[in-house]
């Protein structure tokens, strides 16, 4: 029986995002967990229905700062799926290049955070230091370190400057050396092994039951990877391996991400090789979208990003559904956190690389005739505090 409750949240001190987990503990052991989301009010799904298709792509780019090309890519896939729009070969390679660079920087970010979570700050600083050159590559390609603004229906917005390709190769070579070093360190490091092996195990059966996606599911032995299963862009033209482990613990999730980063470097190199030789247009002109519905998906660093768009023939979507990978991965805590010590719970909660601003994209404020002012927000905050106080006091 649970004797005590330990709250984690509503603002996570390490993840720096708003979520609230209630750990039910018996002594040192976690016996139950209650997941509570809904702390961010963003309204993306509703706003998207008020924007044109092109504006929607920019909107969904703002869903997440880390997956800021996965959402637009899944969104353009969904719009292109309505009319089976083809895109030029050069644009396919550019999309794949951007997507894989994002995977490298996202995985490096998580590796650093995981090190920070277990008190191994050396790993944190190294991983984030080596993430910086990836952001420089983004800046060279798109002009932005984040929110690249590259995706368009029918292709990409900006071309890769041929004169910048040698510089991109140089930076990529540096990243590859450092990633090999991190991969060897992850393999050999006794600190990581003793802290992560056997911690927070998500079994194959549970991963299937919870419909987990991405590295979370691949660490448990599920081979699903959208890049292989439903290849869009240039993924059927490049060679790479799907990394699958079988233990499902936090260490395997780390290994999957490290090895996936090496695969991504391989893909980026192949894309750069092709971009040197392939010339041609980068954008097919799409005049209008027919009535219909389309599903787009992309293997984001955290797993499958899913977008569903329905069009009525106008220039706006009538329904735009967004499902981020964390939305299906966060509920797996119910399986992976039970029975482990409290000290292991935090790294287990971080092991799926949760992203709460992705997960809670859909809330809409009803009957808001005007933008709330500071005074309104203060009033709402006081009302909420009173409401919570009444609930706690039971009247």
């Amino acid at each position, binding site marked *: 029986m649970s004797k005590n409750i330990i709250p984690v949240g509503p603002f996570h001190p390490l993840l720096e995002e708003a979520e609230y987990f209630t750990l039910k503990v018996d002594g040192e052991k976690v016996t139950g967990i209650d997941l509570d989301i*809904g702390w961010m009010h963003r309204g993306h799904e509703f706003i998207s229905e008020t924007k044109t298709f092109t504006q929607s792509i920019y909107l969904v780019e703002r869903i997440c700062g880390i997956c800021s090309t996965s959402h637009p890519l899944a969104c353009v896939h969904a719009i292109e799926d309505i009319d*089976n729009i083809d895109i030029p070969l050069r644009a396919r390679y550019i999309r794949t290049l951007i997507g894989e660079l994002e995977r490298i920087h996202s995985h490096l970010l998580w590796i650093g955070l995981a090190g920070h979570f277990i008190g191994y700050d050396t790993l944190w600083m190294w991983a984030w230091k080596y993430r910086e050159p990836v952001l420089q590559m983004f800046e060279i390609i798109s002009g932005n370190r984040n929110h690249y603004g590259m995706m368009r229906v029918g292709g990409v917005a900006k071309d890769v400057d041929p004169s910048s390709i040698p510089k991109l190769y140089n930076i990529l070579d540096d990243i590859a050396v450092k990633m090999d070093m991190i991969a060897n360190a992850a393999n050999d490091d006794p600190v990581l092994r003793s802290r992560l092996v056997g911690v927070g195990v998500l079994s194959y059966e549970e991963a299937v039951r919870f419909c987990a996606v991405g590295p979370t599911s691949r660490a448990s032995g599920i081979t*699903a990877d959208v890049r292989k299963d439903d290849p869009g862009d240039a993924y059927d033209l490049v060679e790479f391996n799907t990394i699958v482990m079988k233990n499902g613990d936090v260490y395997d999730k780390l290994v999957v991400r490290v090895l996936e980063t090496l695969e991504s470097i391989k893909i980026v190199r192949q894309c750069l090789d092709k971009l040197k030789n392939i010339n041609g247009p980068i954008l097919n002109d799409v005049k209008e979208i027919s009535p219909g519905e389309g*599903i787009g998906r992309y293997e984001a660093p955290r797993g499958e990003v899913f977008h569903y768009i329905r069009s009525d023939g106008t220039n706006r979507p009538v329904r735009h559904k967004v499902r981020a990978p964390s939305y299906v991965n966060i509920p797996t805590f119910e399986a992976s956190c039970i029975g482990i010590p409290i000290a292991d719970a935090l790294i287990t909660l971080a092991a799926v690389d949760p992203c709460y601003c992705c997960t809670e994209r859909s809330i809409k404020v009803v009957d808001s005739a005007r933008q709330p002012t500071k005074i309104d927000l203060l009033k709402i905050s006081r009302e909420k505090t009173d409401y919570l106080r009444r609930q706690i006091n039971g009247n």
Partner: protein
Amino acid sequence: MDNVENFVSLHNTKISKLIKKKKRFYFNVKNDDVIEIADYLFNKIGCRLSTATAQETYNGIEVLYHFSHDESGEYFCPRVIITDKKNPEMNSITPIVKGAEWIEREMYDLWGIKFIGHPRLELLLTKDNPAGINQPLRFRRES
């Protein structure tokens, strides 16, 4: 397209309004059959539930489940249309597909659809709203 043809031949009487596109397969099912269809897709042919989409139209409220068959990259999308807009109800597939728990709670929260048989039908996103359940994504012509 073996999976799709097998599926259609086995459930010929239960599905209608088929739309076949490249790797995408949309069809309508009745509320009474949705559990059986979900059971077949999830347990028999090994689909994974990606998510579900609710939408209000002038005919009713549509709930469209998206089952991904990862081996072939195909999507099976059963669509249930709830015509009673004042008191929308349908059968929950959560007892069969655990991964549907949150999305059905979200649809209950944002659209007011009651999922019969859901093990924990509580508000997911707006539960702390002092105004209570207000179904923010429904049409509001009357107000």
